[in-house]
């Protein structure tokens, strides 16, 4: 058994380990990809991968005066429902868990009205709305009847609006449907 240290080999080995660690960490923490690749392939928050032509189509569709979530085509729904949503149903789409995010193009000079309904095991569901990362308002959404949320759009907003909903007490409706529901998005209106 040798007791001598092969210093050049050890140094080379340590350099290689450093390289491998660097690639592992850099690749995980800082991928250089567009957000649609990241959302579909890496974080898996979106249900489809969007290309520029599809994004343009979705933006045009969502700039319409009224958009019923259930009636949107697959691409537009995929664009709108960024993360935290269940599969769409006849009435709209339910949030899953504590956080759900929608993305849509900002329409300058217009007010965004969201038709929603809530679910809570007890009383009403409390939500907090964030627009482009800024906490905007909180509201109690009743279970059952629909409610209209007026989301203030910054006057100089251009491009994409990111609206996040923080749902305080999501819960499963019954033993058959065990999803953690809180907020259902039914329609989007620009006024």
């Amino acid at each position, binding site marked *: 058994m040798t007791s001598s240290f092969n210093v050049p080999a050890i140094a080379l080995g340590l350099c290689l380990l450093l390289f491998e660690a660097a690639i592992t960490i850099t690749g995980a923490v800082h*991928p250089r990809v567009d957000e649609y690749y990241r959302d579909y392939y890496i974080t898996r928050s979106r249900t489809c991968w969007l290309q520029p032509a599809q994004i343009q189509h979705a933006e045009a569709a969502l700039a319409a005066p009224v958009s019923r979530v259930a009636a949107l085509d697959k691409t537009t729904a995929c664009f709108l429902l960024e993360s935290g949503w269940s599969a769409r149903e006849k009435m709209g789409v339910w949030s899953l868990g504590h956080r759900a995010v929608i993305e849509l193009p900002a329409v300058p000079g217009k007010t965004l009205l969201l038709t929603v309904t809530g679910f809570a095991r007890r009383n009403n569901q409390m939500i907090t709305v964030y627009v482009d990362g800024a906490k905007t308002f909180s509201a109690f959404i009743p279970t059952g009847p629909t409610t209209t949320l007026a989301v203030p759009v910054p006057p100089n907003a251009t491009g994409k609006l990111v609206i996040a909903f923080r749902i305080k007490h999501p819960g499963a409706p019954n033993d058959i449907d065990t999803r953690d529901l809180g907020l259902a998005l039914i329609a989007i209106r620009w006024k």
Partner: protein
Amino acid sequence: MTNQRLIVLIAALIILRLSLYALVTGAVTALPDELCQWDCGWFVSTAETGYNLHLATSGVVFGQANWVDFPVFPFLIHLAAFLFHLPGPLAGLVAANLAFGAFVFLSVKYLAFTARGQAPLALVLFLLCYPYGFYLSLAYTESPYAAFTMAAFYFLARGAVLPSALAASCLAATRVTGVLFTPIIVVRALNAARAAWRQSGQRAAAATLANAILPIAIAPLGLFLFMAYLYLHMGDAYAFLHIQRGWGRAENNPLAVLLTGLQTNDLVPAFSTGHQSHTFAALCGLAGLALSARLLLLRRFAECWFLLASILIALSAGLLAFPRYCLANPIFMVGLFEFCHVTLPRWAFAALTFGFLLLQLYLIHLWIHHYDVFV
């Protein structure tokens, strides 16, 4: 048997096997194209045009890219095409069968060195006739993966740690599961350090461990070089994993996948449709787990780990194409040979080998007619 005789024997048998394939397919000059099905097209395309810069935006390959193809095999195809002036599918066939020959040769040397049987002819015939061994003659990663696996095990058994690590590095650049050899080198280093401590004391143990840093770093290097390339090329070092979503694959509990496959109970219906049987794939998984258990009982821990971990990782991605990941695994093939050779009388082993050959030719027939029931 001398090395030269062994090489000549293996080469002759591989040529004979390919001739049988030509007989079954009815094609000689068209054999490379007939055999180039499913993923083969991807490997040949990668060899010819390199890695995609972007995802495919149209057609059946929408949202897919060839980042899932690890570089070693496309490189070997490219090399064969360049050296011998061959078209893609033929270059793939040549590269695959050269690697297959290397695998068979190294398997014989490995078993002989580890004193687990001195029946080289039986092993060669078994591997040539083994039903799922047909994958090792196709332009798929099975043959280079098998060759580098056996090289890594063989060199490690001989105490040649650095060559073993280099083989492991090539293995890691052939398939993602190739990186599973790295823990084997780490454990060997730890065992060596423990032995050095007992024999010569603390300094010897420290030196042994320190000197093992280089082979430990080299073993997974192939994977990391590929990751670095992907990061520079298209921005995602883990694209080989992430792009699996383009085929609808997701990570699942491997045992849950196995159970679901067994419960599907579609083995008989699959015969009539000619399409993949989840039950069959799950049964392959069980066979793999059983062989892993046998290796564990025989205290062949490194082989057990390599086979078991490869099976579980493959299962976690689903049952699609799972049979080949299990049944064409080199440790599975060699392990199955040992089991059959030890357990069966000579005449039964010979009959089994012949039966395997017939089954292999049947699988080739299914293959060229696009039936994926067992493949």
